[in-house]
């Protein structure tokens, strides 16, 4: 539990502090991993396999998110030649 919380916090710090959007995506992966560790730990503690089923769903969603997010990064890079999130102001009003 404590390990999961610490990994989650590291991911949150990564999202908040870094400017490289690829590193921000990796931080999101770390956060999802922290959630998975928590699910598995409870599954182990309660001796119940449902936690592992949910962890499988989390992994599926993480894979989908990574594919779409990296596609967006590629499309953006082709247009603006940067992956700095401070310059991503296309949708600013």
């Amino acid at each position, binding site marked *: *539990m404590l390990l999961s*919380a*610490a*990994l*989650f*916090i*590291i*991911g*949150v*710090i*990564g999202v*908040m*502090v*870094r*400017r*490289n*959007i*690829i*590193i921000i995506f*990796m*931080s999101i*992966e*770390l956060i999802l*991993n922290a959630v*998975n560790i928590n699910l*598995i730990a409870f*599954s*182990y*503690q*309660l*001796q*119940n*396999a*449902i936690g*592992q*089923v949910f*962890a*499988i*769903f989390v*992994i*599926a*969603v*993480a*894979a*989908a*998110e*990574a*594919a*779409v997010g*990296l*596609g*967006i*990064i*590629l*499309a953006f*890079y082709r247009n603006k030649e*940067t992956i700095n*999130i*401070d*310059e991503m102001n296309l949708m600013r009003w």
Partner: protein
Amino acid sequence: MAEAIAFYFISACILGFAVLVISTRDTVHSVLFLVLDFLFVAALYVLLGAQFLAAIQILVYAGGIVVLYLFVVMLVNLKRPPEAHSDPHRKTNWGFALSIAVLVELAAVAAYSYARPAPALAAAAQAPVPLSGNTEQVGWLLYTSYLIPFEIASMLLLVAMIGAIVLAKREL
């Protein structure tokens, strides 16, 4: 005893590599630390009796997602690193402050649940049912009780695949 030592060693490795992932300058090094981190998380899954999940973790994360990240890192071949350009409006300290706020929230939740353990948790801790045949059990649950979420997840993966292909096409 040996299990506890293994748990603490793996935990220390996971946390250390996670810190390295978000603190390294070079993005390629960061991705490689991410692979190591995922491998140690898979080791932790084995320790917690989830062998099937460990295999999935290695196949999907360390094998699939990280290769995807490496491809993108090499495709976007950076001429100037993103961190070199600094925005005067950016407030890095606020990011740390918000992270610490989330940490305090988590600590509050943990303290609250220690003070008043949930009744279901206590009941289950008293009468543990042996968890045997890991893959078989997970598969059984996945294809009986959780069939509809399973199908929705597969639809989500299909939509994400099509979306990624459309996004990454040269001209839309």
